[in-house]
């Protein structure tokens, strides 16, 4: 399984590389007041409107000090996410979604059998498990679950 990893604070997280469409420097985000707290706002990517999810907020972290720090990941929502959602028996979601993270790191090739179930203290559903790449522990996230949580108005733990 190919996993794209990103960093938030000092921790590393990963999502399947198949779900990554594009990485880019942050664009100015229009905040959407009264929306779910995890939604940082909306951005205009070459004429397409995408919802930005703040991974920091999703994980219950504090916001970064400055707005334009970090990096953005545009998810591949047309096929990959739909497929994942289908596997998880979730409502298919195919609108453009961007994850805002502190920094993207390299793509790790992780053997599937090295993925451990999430440690007991983790309460978030969308944490799929933990994988090890050398000395680095990577928390594997399920984006489809995360989006479904937000869609259903489930508050973050």
């Amino acid at each position: 399984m190919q996993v794209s990893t990103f960093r938030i604070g000092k921790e590393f997280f990963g999502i399947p590389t198949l779900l990554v469409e594009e990485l880019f420097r942050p664009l100015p985000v229009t905040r959407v007041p009264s929306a779910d707290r995890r939604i940082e706002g909306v951005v205009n990517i070459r004429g397409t409107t995408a919802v930005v999810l703040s991974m920091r907020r999703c994980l219950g972290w504090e916001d970064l000090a400055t707005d334009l720090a970090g990096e953005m990941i545009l998810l591949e929502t047309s096929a990959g996410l739909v497929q994942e959602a289908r596997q998880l028996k979730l409502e298919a979601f195919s609108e453009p979604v961007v994850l805002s993270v502190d920094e993207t790191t390299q793509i790790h090739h992780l053997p599937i059998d090295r993925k451990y179930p999430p440690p007991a203290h983790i309460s978030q559903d969308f944490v799929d498990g933990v994988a090890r790449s050398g000395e680095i522990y990577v928390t594997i996230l399920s984006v489809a679950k995360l989006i479904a949580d937000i869609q259903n108005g489930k508050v973050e733990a």
Partner: protein
Amino acid sequence: MEEAHDPELLAEFVTESLSGLQSVEQDLLLLEDDGGADKDLVNRIFRAVHSIKGAGAYLNLANLVTVSHRAETLLDDIRAGRRTANALVTDAVLGAVDALTAMLEADDQGHSYNCLAILEQLDLVLQGDQQLDAQAPMTSTDSRNLAHSTNPASKTPGPADGAPSNTHSSADQACDLLGPADSAMANCDPTVLADFMAESLQGLDEIQHDLQELESEGGTDSGLVKRLLQTVQTIAGQAAYLKLHKLTALSQASQTVLERIHRKTLQPTHAVTDVVFQAFSTLRLMLTPEHDSAARDCASLVQQLGSILDNNGVPLPPLPPLPLADWQFLKQLTNRVYPLYRLFVDLGELHQAIDIKEGVLEGLNAIGKVRHASLPLELIDTSLSGECMLYLETMLEPSILSQHLHIRLSAIEKVDLAQQPVAPLASHPAPSPAAIPKLVTPASSSTAASAPPLASSSRGGPAAPTQPAPVEVPPLPPAAMAKTSSMAAEEKMPDSEKTQRTRAADEPTMRVPARILHELLEWTGNMVMARNQLLNEYDFRESNAFRTLSQAITGVHETVIETRMQTTGSLFERYRRVVRDLSRQLKKEVAFHIEGGDLELDRTILESFADPLTHLVRNCIDHALETPEERVAAGKNRQGNVHLRSYVQSGEIILEVQDDGRGISAEYICSKALSKGIITAAEANSMTEEDKVMLIFEAGFSTKDQATDVSGRGVGMDVVRNNIESVGGTIDLRTRVGEGSVFAARLPLAKALVSSSLTTALIIEIANECLAIPETAISEIIQYDERTLKNIRQVDGRNVYQHRDKIVAMIDLRTPLGLQQSPTVNKKVDKSRATHPMNKRACLVIIQFRDQLFGTVVDEVVGMQEIIVRSNPQLIQDCTVFSGHTVLGNGRISLILDINGIVNKMSLKFPKQASKKNSPLDEVEGYPAYEVTATQKMLVFNNSDTEYFAIPIELVAFIERIRESDLTLVGEREFCRLKSETLSIVRLEKFLPVSPLNRKLKDVCLIRPAAVDHPIGVVIGRDLAVVDVAETFESRLDDQSGIVGTFYWNDHLVMLLDLFCVLEKHSPEKISHRDESTHNARILVAEDSLFFRKLIGQYMQRDEWEVKIVNDGLQAYDELINNPTRYDLIISDINMPIMDGFELVRKVREDRRFDKLPMVALTTMSEEHFREKGLALGFDRYVIKIDKREVRATVSECLRIRRDGGAARRLSAEEN
């Protein structure tokens, strides 16, 4: 014939026909209104139906062709003036349109459609109206006959130049039906032709009545049949002489059938007479001008007639319905392998056909298995004649069976055991004539030999229907024709082609998957946005190429949007039919009005309104509108009115259904809701009228005892509401018993527009965020400066803004948007906001929500812009304060505010809309200019903790919260320094017999009365509210105590205060009457508000003055006309129901007698343009009704002018 057609072609035909039918429906309704006077209209309808028929015939859609043909026949009659387009006729044609639509929409294009009912209806009209024709003057044919008789050579060939033009035209037409290109035809004299046609038509007209009786008589009246026969014989003979082959063929065929009926060898069943009718009307058609459709039908009719003979009078299609008993029996047979066929056979013939010694049964069992029969099986072989129904299980195709057994194909039917046969009555045979030719096979009937040559000529061919030779010949090579006919032919032929072609040119359509259009729309939206961004970044003013590109982008965008847009009118037009049909069905007279039908909305959104609107419209007619008798009894116009209108207001589109019927009784609805358990008695008690009426939309609500088959008032209203809410809209209802109701569906504009369409919005900036407010929601933008600030006051701890005569709530948009929490909020702005900073660019935006206003301060107004509206992504769709978003020139996204969402989020409560109080008719009847003030807005406040007082809000300049310590005591008097003024303080308890203000209060409120020149302030308690007071307050006799009346508010007794009385007592020197001495005078006052009536009454209270107060302008005018010399002065309010002040002064000034009568406008409408208008219309003075002193001074002055014979201004104006 049976070849499969290109499915694309078929789809094209269906789409085109359906849209054609839609326009036909609308045209028909127009037609009904003008009774067929508009020839273009009739032609248009005719052409549309005709092209459906033509194409349908090409595609072998028999049912379609049959129905459209009959409809066309009717239309042709209208076109030729033989028939008026009365309700009966349009009913039938509309029915035909419905049937055609249903067929086209069916998967099989109507092959299995049961069109008997509609055919019967059409025939009924075709016959029924002919009866009318027979009595009433036959417009067209008669005039032709008349014209003909003016021709001296009526029987003998005469000079053609003497014949009137219409004789010519009939002659031309006649030549057109000459048929085969026989050289003998060339020398046919047109005059002879004309004579023949006129005579034949006359003959046909005479027997029309007989024709109808034929069926009911059942052929028993031999005289009747004989008359028919004679007429046809004459026509046939003459036509043959004139070598009019088509005509000959048809009339001969009809003649044969009639002969058979006459000889009683043929039973004139419905099936038979149907074809005969058809033949006769086609004959008529062929003999009249503009018959371009008739010739084509002729061939099929001849066939049909022939087939009647071939079948030896067996009704067509001859298969009686499958008997239920047989079906049940057959169903039990489980061991079937092959399809089961039902054969209707004549045993005698069958014996001949199956030349097998073993007998029929053996023969049949050789090719299959006889499962059942209407006779006992053993009898089949022994009976040598008689009819029998056989159930044969076989693998053979029906066509092979038909050949093998020598039975007609139509007598073979596949039995579908899965389907229970319909009750025999419903499937009573009545064939569709056009379907008959398909069934025809050469008959083996021996009686056919007695048939005339024509019929025999159609026999003996193979299974495929043969057409008689003369009919087959394509019409007329012009060269062989007489000159006139060739000209006619040349014009004729291309003409029908032309009409089809132009029709196609009018609206060529192309079917494109919606997805492609949607993508196109997205892309073009992006193009427009990208262009705007480019314009923002670079200066392209000099670039022609860019300008062209820009125009092209705009053009593309507009065009693409157009593909998705549809006018509300197109939706509304559909209801014309609903209204018409229903009102006829219910015997009500209804006028249907469409207003604002040019508003364009997204097709799909509009479509989602179709069902709710249908429901509302049906309800309107069924329940809301009374019968004409009831209406007359109620003093209304016989004809009820239903209005459908659409308009845009406050960023919402509004679709309204309005009626002027009974209205809905709140109490009735409430009691129903109680009985259904939707609300409890306690809830009911606390509900307002409006709330009660809205119960109609609750799920489960119904007024069952009232329901009909059409619609149940209340039943399903929750469905209406759900439908509208599912697209993001709301519905509300205004109603007044006896006057009618208005249902208004509202939808935010951003939701109603096509995604990616353009709209105008105000872009504002607040807390560093750009937001868009739909232009239609903006009432006003006011510079936020010192002067504005002065008008901002606090009521109940919240800011309000004195906006002209209204007090508007001010909201901080950052609260509903939660903007202050964001880390990027500029601290400086945040802090200064609390104290209303003098931000140079800040503006106060007055937003209108429905009819109400509220204000908000924004940091900056960026400007009005055309924006591309896009719907919000799913993940943020629950943010109801935004209805969508757009991309601004800088590439950033800006959210569009949904005013409705803001209002809900802030739980702003507006007093019930003023318009709700209005009669729903006001708008329609033309009173919309000014609001009717049925209620008075009052500021309610307390003095002591429990005693409440009220004054009209107009009397309040502002309210300020002060501390008790701010008051300075100087001797007996108190003063307060507020802003730059030092106000003299009034305490109510000093002048009125009321309890004193609680002295322990640290802070109190101060009212600064409006329209009082000297600084004065009234100290009051802290309990403040602005309430609407209906004019039901109790009045007290004016005892100069300063209390005008009382009313209840929230269980408090509220004293209505005469503030001026108090102020007068406080400082008599300042607010004294100072009245000049006046003389006796009679004053007429027009004022609708009870409060002001009392107030003015008090103002005017002087011994010398005799005051008469009336309720409105009309009453005042009537009073004045009745007593023209009585009054010395008229005082009028401006804003009044029925006749307002402007109208009153206009009418009074029109009358020369009142030239010198002084008129004073006394109003709360202080805007300058109203003042100007009032003075221009002839008021001598325009006074704001607040200041008693000014009012009295003005009145005195005006009276003085009159007394002095002054009116000099007016006089001098006249001299000029």
